[in-house]
Each structure stands twice: as C-alpha cells, then as structure tokens.
C-alpha cells in the first residue's frame, strides 16, 4: 500500500511516479492526479487517501499563493501513458522464496511439514516458467503461494518439533524419577 505511486500535472506536464508523501508536498487540492486503480485523472481533493494528507499539510504549512492554473490538455491523453507505466512496473520478476523453502525444509524438517515445503518449491519453479512465458499475473500468484507455503512449512515444522520436544523432555524427566 505504501508503495502506491502517483502522477500529477504540473504546468501542463505529467510528473511522476512519486510517493504519496512527495505528492502532497508538491500539489494543491485542485491539482489533477492519477494512480493505479483510478479510471481517470481527478482533483487531489476528490481522492480520499491523498485529500486526508493534504488537510494535514495545509494546517501546518502556511497557504501558498495559488499559481494561475495553465490550460490543461484533454485528460484522457494522460491515462494511456500512465497505464503503460503500470505495465512496466510489473517488469520485475517476483521473488520465488526458494531460499526460504529450502531453509524451512532442511531446518524445520518433519514428516508433516515436508509436503508443504515441496509445494512451496513447486510454486518457486512456476514463478520462473510463468514469467518467461509472459504470464506475469500467474507468476505473481505463484510467488505469493511459494511464500505462503514456505511460511506454513516453517510453522508446521516448528510446532511439530516443539510438541515432540516437550513430549521428549517430559517422558525423559518422568522415566528418570
């Protein structure tokens, strides 16, 4: 969520991507902004998550003389270029969490956690193959699954070992009494 990037119109020019903090320091409530998920450009004051931050900003910073707003080109003109940007952000291959699957499998090994470790590694494999065949959404889903199952492997392995260890300690203590 915090990595949401924004674009805004400054003197008729599209500026961005910028973080929300950068955005609110540069714009007025009347500035046109756009971010992924919005169908079109809109005044900053109409976008709740930005408007909230702008209110805080205007109470602490003395109001600045409003610049005469230059004539804006048709708004639809910007949307396609921004959509293109949102595609290029997806050009980074998602993490496959193979390191964590391996660590969880070797360190937290147990008969109950190992199947989850194998599912995690299978999804790690899918991240690469789906990505290389251009299926970016599938690659990202596989990445999420690899992460989820690596965590499940670790938790199941850890819990099994803790229960077994407590059992081992108590039976050891009892037999020594």
């Amino acid at each position: 969520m915090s990595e949401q990037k924004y674009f805004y119109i400054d003197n008729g020019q599209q500026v961005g991507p910028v973080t929300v903090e950068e955005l609110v320091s540069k714009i007025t409530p009347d500035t046109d902004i756009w971010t992924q998920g919005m169908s079109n450009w809109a005044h900053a004051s109409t976008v709740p998550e930005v408007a909230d931050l702008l209110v805080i900003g205007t109470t602490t910073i003395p109001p600045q003389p409003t610049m005469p707003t230059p004539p804006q080109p048709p708004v639809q003109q910007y949307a396609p270029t921004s959509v293109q940007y949102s595609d290029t952000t997806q050009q980074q291959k998602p993490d496959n969490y193979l390191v964590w699957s391996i660590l969880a499998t070797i360190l937290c090994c147990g008969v109950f956690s190992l199947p989850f470790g194998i599912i995690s590694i299978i999804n790690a494999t899918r991240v690469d193959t789906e990505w290389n065949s251009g299926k970016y959404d599938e690659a990202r889903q596989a990445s999420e699954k690899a992460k989820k199952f690596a965590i499940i492997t670790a938790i199941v392995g850890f819990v099994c070992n803790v229960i077994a260890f407590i059992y081992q300690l108590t039976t050891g203590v009892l037999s020594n009494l």
Partner: protein
Amino acid sequence: MNKPVKTTFKIVTAIAAIIIVAVVVVIYRDHNPAGSSMFPKCVFFTMTGYKCPGCGTQRALHYLLNGEFRESFRQNPMFHVGMAYVVAYYVSKSPLVYPKYPKIADALSSAAVCIMWLVGIIAYWILRNV
C-alpha cells in the same frame, strides 16, 4: 508518520535476532546433540526409524562451530549445500554484485535450479536411507 514506529520495530527485531543467534551458537558449540536428551529429536526418525533430509543438522552445526568441518559434513551434507546456496543467493542479490551481474541471481532462482532442489531433496531423502 509510520516511519519511526517501523524503524523501532526493525531495530528491536534485529537485536532480538542477534541475541537468539548468539544463544543458539553458544548452546550448539558447547553441547553435542548426539546422545543428549536435551535436544529435540527428529519426529520423522522417531516415528519411522528412517532419516529425513534434515536429520543431522544439529550435530552438523555443533561440529561446524568447533571447526571440525569433515565431521560436520559427514553428519548432514545437505545442511552445507543448503547454507552454501543461501549465502550465494544473498551475495548475488547484494547491491555490490546484483547491479553488475544480475544474471547470477537470475540463474540461482531459475526454474532449473528449483527443480534441481526439489529432485535433490527427495533423492537425498531416499538415498540416505538405502
């Protein structure tokens, strides 16, 4: 507004992690898990009598911390191979290496390497029990 809280959380987590690692290192350096009932035993081995791919990791760590590399490797080579991979992966992802040689990290996380690990772990599991 969230940033100071996040930084504090990160520092606390880092300190906790360092303390836990230090305690684990001291315990495993000074005590041999073999023949001790104070270390967790493998659930799979206890139940079936067969070794799992992780069996021997605690002993391997003990010998490694005492500088007995050959004995450590003998206990569970998969532990060493796994650690070598983890270190290699993070070095290849580090800011020193990744911008210059991004292909190393790509190769290490490629589908071929994933399948190698999958097949390797299962094959090792079977072979060490034969």
